């Protein structure tokens, strides 16, 4: 009888101790923020264009975590949809054409001699990528522009163009290999005719 009692007592005290530890850990190591929204937001392209119908990527991330469809972001395109599907364990669906289509990356360009300095574009830009003061010519900080298109509409003199991001040696990408006869990498045969001494 005493054995059973001690056993129960020991188990009880253990339960209490672990309960305290767990409760403490729950408070002490509480995860801040809403990690799933952060994760979704991390996959969205941050163009902040609002094509998804929300005022920016984070609001859309919140909407997705609340069950909205994952195919409403045209700048992210199919790869973003795939990544989201993977993260959320949902089905991969094609991009919802209602919100626009996937386009190559663009950057805004202001024809500066035509700019009247109305500051309308500055107010529209979601990432503060336009520099300029009232009645002075405005310029786009190319490295900060997300290509969201939002500054084009408000310009009263239509001096903003969206141009494709120029390719330079520093952002150029090696193409996927095709059977290009000019690849020097498949070195088979190269130089074999010229064994040492065959000169």
């Amino acid at each position: 009888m005493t054995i059973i009692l001690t056993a129960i007592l020991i188990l009880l005290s253990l339960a209490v101790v672990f309960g305290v530890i767990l409760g403490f850990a729950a408070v002490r190591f509480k995860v801040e923020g809403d990690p799933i929204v952060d994760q979704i937001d991390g996959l969205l392209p941050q163009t902040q264009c609002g094509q998804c119908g929300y005022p920016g990527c984070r609001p859309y991330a919140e909407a997705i975590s609340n069950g909205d469809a994952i195919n409403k972001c045209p700048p992210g395109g199919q790869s973003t949809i795939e990544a989201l599907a993977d993260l959320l364990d949902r089905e991969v669906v094609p991009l919802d054409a209602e919100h626009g289509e996937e386009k190559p990356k663009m950057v805004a360009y202001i024809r500066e001699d035509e700019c009247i300095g109305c500051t309308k574009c500055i107010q529209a830009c979601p990432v503060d990528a336009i520099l300029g003061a009232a009645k002075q010519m405005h310029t786009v900080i190319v490295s900060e522009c997300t290509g969201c298109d939002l500054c084009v509409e408000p310009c009263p003199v239509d001096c903003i163009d969206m141009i494709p991001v120029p390719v330079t040696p520093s952002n150029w990408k090696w193409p996927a290999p095709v059977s290009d006869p000019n690849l020097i990498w498949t070195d088979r045969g190269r130089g074999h005719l010229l064994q040492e001494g065959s000169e």
Partner: protein
Amino acid sequence: MTRIYSFHGGIHPPENKRQSLGAPIRQAPLPARLILPLQQHIGKAATPLVEVGDQVLKGQKIAEPTGHVSAAIHAPSSGIISYIGLQPVPHASGLESPCIVIETDGQEQWCELHPIENYRDLDKKELLKHIRDAGITGLGGAGFPTDIKLNLSKDHIVNTLIINAAECEPYITADDALMRERPNDILTGVEIIAHLLQPSKILIGIEDNKPNAIKALRDAIRERNLPIELVVVPTRYPSGGEKQLIQLLTSIEVPSGSIPADVGIVCQNVGTAAAIYRAVIHGEPLISRIVTLTGFALGHRQNYEALIGTPFSVLLEAADVDRSKMFRLVMGGPMMGISIEDDRIPLIKTTNCIIAATQEEMPPAPPAQPCIRCGMCEQVCPATLLPQQLYWFAKGREFEKARHHNLFDCIECGACAYVCPSNIPLVQHYRFAKSEIRNEEAEQLKAAQARERFEARQARLVREELEKEQRRKERAEAAAREQARKKAEADSVSSDTPDPEAELKKLKSAASIARTKLKKASEALKNAEEKGLDGTEKLKETVAQLEEKAAAAENAWQQATGAEQ
């Protein structure tokens, strides 16, 4: 005698070095135009110091480093700056990039040079600055700014300085020629490097297929009695890879993701050592280099000392090119170089070899066949990777997996592609995968930046809104205060003029008081008359007076009420 270790894998491609070693180093002609890309090194592109129309002297600095990891650029000859802008550059993309173009005047007029008399007496910082000002970058490989490699922070203790003289890639003989002809330049350069780094051991690693260079260096070392050990390693490609040479000479494996300095080793190429010698002892910046011109489309296959910025076409002409026979133009060696289309591109600091190959020499690559999983690529990979796996991942666009299989440890040596019986252009796949991953990273960085800016803007908008609200409140408060003040003023004025209501009350009570008094007085008079007391006369008078007063009060009140209504 240092023991020689070995690295995993490696191959023995035909060397094809003999063709270009028949004649000594020849001076390349001075071209009419020198084209100097602002980006010839790893890091940020240099910033021009000159403008179109400026007259420059040979050796004059025309562009300065931008930020820390960058290198200066000097005018390789005297002349006039004719253009600053986009020009085709030696890059796999074949794209254009910003360049400074000098129209040479043929005078070869030097600017004032600042040789260092006794570098050992100079402060190390000054010496490093001198090397930085000379625009020296690694001449053997990727072109990393040399001063940064030599300026190790205090937490890196350098045990071993390794001078890379392996030159393992077929066809290339630029370092070999340099060692044969100018061993003392190299050794003095090594001494300067050793002075900066204070290593406990200095090794020169050289492949055994360069007997003349070995002899020249050995004699020079003996003559000058230097504490430098010449280590002859067997010829096996790619023994000249930095990590491979380190493994050969020290058996130390540089861990994935680390640099040699992390394990106490610094590697420098022989060409770089010679450039340091020139910069320090003669004060000459890096304006020329030795380049191997070879391939059977050329009449004179040999090494040339050419000015940086000399167009390939000029060099090819100097080497007596037969364009009808030239099937392919390669910059660098046959294993790690790139095919180029446009021969207007200039020689840059890292160009060690140009091959003008005939069709027999470098026939088109046969079409790739499916991988048969033979595993030969794994056996030769000097980085002990799994090339076959990497190939599958790259092809299937599974870049994350490729990265986990250490894709970025691949030195793109091409050994795997060389042995692949299916002729798969493996390195192309790796380059593709690497640039996709880098691009992805860059995009993520940009997205993070955009997110930050977006949030900052959101916060700013909220703040502005709050401020506006605050201002509105303040304005409202101020208005309220103003009103209150006005009202208070108005009150103090009105207290002078009688309040009609209060006045009315006063009159009313005055009238009723007068009436009560009159009542009491008339009662007292009545009593006195009934009892026949004396003094009734006086009482009568008072009552008459009170009657009058009450009537007056009654009257005033009546009037006031009347006026009120």
